[in-house]
């Protein structure tokens, strides 16, 4: 009797934590969404040097996966990496500062949008070479194993990386040596400006099968399902069961980069509208939070208001921050 009571109390605590957890997921996803919208504004108002590849539409993948990780777990990211960085714990102000080439940025303005790295949150770096970080992820996993930690490495890559040999060399070694690396294939349907079906033979997950790597293909817009799958694979890897491969079927709401405005030649407006209206991961989670009575319209509105204020503050910080001193151009070529 007493025992049953205790379990009930535990369940209640767990449930409250559980409720709070999904609101936290919502905050994280919305933070990425609003961050990216601000990045687009910075581009449109010519305040940001160069270009950026927006993550809008794919927020559930970064958040669903990174919420399954510890702070000291590793990720390797891609040219479309802002979402991964933020989901792993990067700060908004240093992110904006890096995008604007300021000294206060994560890489002192030397990396920019495609190279944000932050060792404090286990982020081994975004990577502007498609598939270029597959070896790094396997190496980090091997290092964790050799050092006897139980850290896991997550390798984020897009459908475009399925064309790169390095990915398969790395998957072979990861499977052979049971390395704790989880391959997250974010299939946003497009290799830059070309549908992945035009470039990719066979089934995506069959690649993992060939190496004996457990694999799954799931809805990349449903953060709850995605998180459950990621949690399972990450914990398996942590236990020593070796690598896993998760294909997340998602969609890039914007173009390949902020300047890719006229997209009709490679995908229809109708398709885009359909994904935005019916498969928006942020909206899907908001709807679920409301139907599950975990949040109402006013709470969600308050959250959005708070995040928008954080974004404003962070972007203003970055806009006002100084550029690096000219002499820094020669710093950090070599470790002194």
């Amino acid at each position: 009797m007493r025992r049953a009571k205790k379990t009930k109390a535990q369940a209640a605590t767990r449930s409250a934590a559980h409720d709070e957890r999904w609101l936290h997921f919502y905050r994280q996803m919305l933070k990425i969404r609003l961050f990216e919208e601000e990045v687009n504004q910075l581009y449109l108002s010519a305040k940001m040097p160069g270009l950026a590849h927006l993550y809008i539409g794919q927020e559930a993948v970064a958040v669903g996966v990174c919420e399954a990780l510890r702070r000291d777990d590793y990720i390797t990211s891609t040219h479309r990496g802002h979402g991964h960085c933020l989901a792993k714990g990067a700060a908004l102000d240093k992110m904006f500062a890096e995008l604007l080439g300021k000294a206060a940025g994560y890489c002192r303005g030397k990396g920019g949008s495609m190279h944000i790295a932050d060792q404090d949150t286990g982020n081994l770096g975004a990577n502007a070479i498609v598939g270029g970080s597959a070896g790094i992820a396997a190496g980090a996993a091997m290092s964790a194993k050799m050092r006897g930690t139980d850290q896991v490495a997550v390798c984020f890559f897009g459908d475009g990386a399925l064309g790169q040999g390095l990915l398969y060399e790395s998957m072979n070694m990861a499977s052979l040596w049971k390395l704790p690396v989880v391959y997250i294939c974010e299939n946003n349907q497009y290799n830059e400006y070309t549908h992945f079906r035009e470039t990719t033979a066979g089934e995506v997950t069959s690649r993992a099968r060939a190496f004996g790597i457990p694999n799954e293909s799931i809805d990349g817009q449903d953060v709850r399902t995605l998180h459950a799958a990621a949690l399972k694979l990450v914990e398996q890897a942590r236990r020593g069961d070796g690598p896993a491969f998760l294909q997340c079927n998602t969609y890039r709401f914007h173009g390949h980069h902020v300047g890719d405005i006229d997209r009709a030649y490679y995908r229809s407006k109708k398709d885009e509208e359909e994904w935005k209206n019916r498969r928006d991961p942020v909206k899907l989670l908001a709807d679920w939070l409301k139907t599950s009575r975990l949040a109402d319209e006013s709470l969600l509105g308050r959250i959005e208001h708070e995040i928008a204020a954080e974004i404003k503050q962070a972007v203003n910080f970055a806009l006002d921050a100084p550029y690096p001193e000219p002499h820094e151009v020669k710093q950090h070529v070599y470790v002194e």
Partner: protein
Amino acid sequence: MAVTAKQSGAAREITFGQAINEALAEEMRRDPRVFIIGEDVAEAGTPFKVLSGLVKEFGPERVIDSPISEAGIAGVGVGAAMTGMRPVVDIMFGDFITLTMDQLVNQAAKIHYMSGGKLKVPMVLRTTLGATRRSAAQHSQSLHAWVSHIPGLKVAVPATPYDAKGLLKSAIRDDNPVVFFEDKMMYQLKGPVPEGEYTIPLGVADVKRAGSDITFVATSSMVHVALVAAEALQQSHISAEVVDVRTTVPLDRQTIIDSVKKTSRAIVIDEGYERYGVTAEIASVIADGAFYYLDAPVKRMGAMDVPVPFSPVLEDQTVPTPESVAAMAKTLCNK
């Protein structure tokens, strides 16, 4: 502290290959973060047998036989180096570094800089160079100029067992990615190597032979070609100085310039392709730093700009020889 073989007074002679093996074994004993990964590195000890015995002492967890995946193992090395290990990646033939290029050039070389100094890649990539082994066009190239071109990489080209050991130990302890080229024709070359600990800093050239009429600036295999040529030139009353750069990055400009200021003539000798090569870079360093001291144009001697042919009569023409170097020196000295 660096000591020379002469200073140590040790009479022990070992081969270039044994010197490499000793450097790796000593560093692996000293630092548990050091490990070796590559094709046929464990029981086989590489086709050149340079790593023989290491797997017995350190086990297959630290001397790791990899698949034939040069890009993959270079990438694994980069990732392991970024996260606290000190990998030594073995790329069997220098020709195969072409397969590792993205990992070396776009990843290893740039990660420290791109991250604003936060991340580092303390990795050594060992590989070979050198022709005349009758191995034809895809196993005979000397591609050290390729990586010497890239900011962020250091590049070692040792010429003696003593230098090989001391430089490799420094390379393993260096916090930067270092590409380490070993002349595969030199693995059996013997030379004095003292027992016990010593290192040679990267970026310090060594005057292998003193002379007063002409300077031969040479790398790796070509140091020996230069030394033989210098001996032969004595008969013609030409005194040749031989400067071994030991590392192309960092390059010890001062030692080169000082030597040429003294001798007033220079030939730069390297086994890489001559066109756009290491010889061009060093010749420009001389032109820049010793122009007003020169009595003759700076000459460059590299590998012939052809794919390395198989047939011995063809292959032997493609690399500088003591005879061709001596002939060039006589021309420059008007003798």
